[in-house]
């Protein structure tokens, strides 16, 4: 009886499929890579060949240039490719635009590599699609019971209310440039906020890319000071990468009110440490309830945990009678604390 490890196993470069000779989200350059989504810790440049969704390939091209890999192959959600007895397909993961779970079928096993995922509605990407499997390879970024996220719209309502209460202050929202920024913008639009939203330069090309794939963001302007005066940002929403908020960059704004959209904001000490005045608990990852309910839903024979806070999830699996192991893969950082 073959083991699932003969289909997919951890290696120093990441998860490797020996019969298909490919890696999933390798952390160093390899000959053949399957990329689940465009965040830099999962999607690196310099691979020989890359298989990913069209959106993920476009994101990689935007970030690394057109020659980020020797060759590329776009796979639509649900489309299957086979090679040496291994069938590979990509299914939506609901994490960011183009994000996918990699479904690997070989030797009678179905192994689902979730990549990063979430379960709640997100207007910028296709919702997660659960698949029953023998092995579910999950992330555990928020794998502690304290991470139960509130409704996005309630969090955005707090931002909208603050704009009304502090109309003279620039609301500076820290949000990771890929995914979170666009999600915050669409949430604001859904809440009826129709004013111009200003964005940091690092986000412009990604915003354009999202628009190209049909994600409407409404009126957006760069947050530059050449034409705009400091007071013009009074009461405006400015979205910037978290690192820019701590930086000199933020001085151009009027009495800025620092906000931060991230799952990490669920814990007060994290918000205080970053000197955030308006923590917005908005995450692109599954929270504890989403993680555990997803695992129950796909009902795997075995659970493998790639990265994050695996200890509590292992304990939960033990209580639920689910066979689980931590792969403790290195190299997958929550980029910039974006969560």
């Amino acid at each position: 009886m073959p083991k699932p490890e003969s289909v997919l196993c951890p290696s120093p470069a990441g998860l490797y499929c020996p019969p298909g000779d490919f890696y999933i989200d390798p952390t160093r350059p390899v000959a053949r890579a399957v990329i689940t989504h465009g965040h830099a810790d999962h999607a690196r440049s310099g691979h020989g060949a890359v298989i990913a969704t069209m959106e993920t390939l476009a994101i990689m091209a935007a970030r690394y240039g057109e020659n980020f890999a020797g060759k590329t192959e776009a796979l639509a959600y649900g489309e299957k490719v086979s090679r040496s007895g291994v069938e590979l397909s990509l299914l939506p993961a609901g994490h960011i635009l183009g994000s996918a779970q990699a479904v690997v079928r070989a030797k009678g096993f179905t192994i689902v590599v979730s990549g990063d995922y979430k379960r709640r509605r997100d207007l910028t990407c296709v919702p997660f699609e659960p698949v029953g499997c023998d092995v579910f390879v999950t992330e555990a970024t928020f794998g502690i019971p304290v991470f139960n996220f509130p409704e996005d719209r309630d969090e955005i309502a707090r931002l909208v209310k603050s704009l009304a209460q502090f109309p003279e202050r620039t609301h500076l929202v820290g949000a990771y440039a890929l995914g979170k920024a666009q999600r915050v913008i669409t949430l604001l639009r859904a809440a009826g906020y129709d004013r111009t939203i200003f964005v940091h330069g690092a986000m412009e090309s990604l915003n354009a890319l999202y628009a190209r794939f049909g994600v409407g963001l409404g009126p957006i302007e760069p947050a530059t000071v050449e034409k705009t005066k400091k007071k013009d940002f009074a009461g405006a929403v400015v979205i910037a990468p978290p690192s820019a908020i701590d930086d000199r960059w933020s001085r151009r704004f009027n009495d800025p009110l620092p906000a931060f959209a991230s799952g990490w904001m669920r814990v007060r000490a994290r918000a205080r440490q970053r000197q955030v005045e308006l923590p917005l608990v908005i995450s692109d990852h599954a929270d504890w309830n989403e993680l555990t309910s997803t695992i129950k839903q796909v009902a795997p024979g075995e659970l493998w945990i790639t990265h994050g806070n695996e200890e509590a999830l292992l304990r939960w699996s033990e209580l639920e009678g689910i066979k689980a192991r931590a792969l403790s893969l290195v190299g997958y950082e929550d980029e910039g604390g974006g969560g």
Partner: protein
Amino acid sequence: MRAFASLLDRLAFTPQRNGKLVLMRDYMRDTPDPERGWTLAALTGGLSFDAAKPAFIRKAVEARMDAQLFALSYDYVGDLAETVALVWPARPGANREPELSEVIDALSSATRAQVQKLLEGWLDAADADGRWALLKLLTGGLRVGVSARLAKQALADMGGVAVAEIEEVWHSQHPPYEDLFAWLEKRSAKPVAGASGRFRPVMLAQAIDAEKDFANYDAADYAAEWKWDGIRVQAANEGGEKRLYSRTGDDIGKSFPDLLDFLNFDGVIDGELLVLRGGKVESFGDLQQRLNRKTADAKLIAQFPAGIRAYDLLMEGDADLRALPFRERRKRLEAFVAAAASPRIDLSPLQPFASWDELARLRAHPPAGDPALAEGLMLKRWDSIYEAGRPKGPWFKWKRDPHLIDAVLMYAQRGHGKRSGYYSDYTFGVWREDANGDRALTPVGKAYFGFTDEELKQIDKFVRDNTVDRFGPVRVVKANRDFGLVFEVAFEGLQRSTRHKSGVAMRFPRINRLRWDKPARDADELATLEKMLE
């Protein structure tokens, strides 16, 4: 509960005073009675519960979830109330979230055993923020950085009245303060402040500008007395109703039961609360042993006996003296204190002087004894009536020059609001000998004002260019014998402190001057500070 929880949540993360005021003002305006009144009571310290002990809360959560999963969660968060708020495994079918007033009603009549059951039901019905607010309220510590005074200021802003008006009626009002809100919303007349022993808004002094003001004022129009270094209080005994108030109207009687016993007069005195031993003033450090305590035990009272040095007389029996000139009030005060003959109340003596120059000499060289411990001088116009607030002209304070030392910048932290892009909060240190016999810096204080915007930019650049390490929002700045930025730091006094590694704590430290010119090695030694200890 939801609005209360959201308010607490935002207050906890809003560092600026003005921001907190806006949040509270808007809440009071938008929230109906009686919810806002109970919130006001919670914010001003008028509600205290110890209905739920941490051990009980822990037991309740562990009955619902795996102990190991809870332990992992608690380790991660570090705060019990917050952890429970986040992980609470709510049972389905809970009632709607309770209003704050329902919680308070239920608590006021429930037994301890009932409280525990109620609490579980409330935790089931609330969301994470609501649970956090509830647990903070029930375990007796909101800790959202709001003083009673600030909450009253927000109330004043909401109603468009002066805060002194709120203070004046405050002690005749009770939660949930419906009459107070009715008045602030102009739905009814101002409540009567008639209660005996109520607080009268305090008159404060402007700082004098010695270079400009003396030219405009005649020395003969003013009385001078020492500005004693304690806390300003108002002591009332009206028809046996004894009260002791801070200058912002907080009732501090419980902390000074020994003093309340000696308010053997009928009237209201304005004075300075001090530790008085045998008629002599002790240092502010001694007084601090008695401050910020809810109660005082016999040992503490015996060790640091509190007294009042009287400045002014506001009520003499039923007679309101506040509209009389200071000259007349003073005369009555002297007779009043003498007649009371309380062992814990004495008179702040007037300091005669003929000219401003003579007064300047007294300030620079106070006579030995109590005046040497004073903060400076007070000037009061002989004809000044007692008016609430800080009017310009009738009263001046003239503090002694601050102490100055040269210290080296060690750590810097980012500021808030307008300063959020700048490193504007500084920890500085002085030299001492370390275990190896080398000269090492030891932190002695923190300051975040005293410099201009231009200087802030320069310091910020220095911090960024010379960062050697980071801990969260704090940067460690390069500082050694041969390199470092020297601040001339001004401060009002120095005390021994067991909480600080250096063993000293400064009062009101601020950056007086940047000494770019001064080599770090020439900054002061800890020994110099130790000599200044009071």
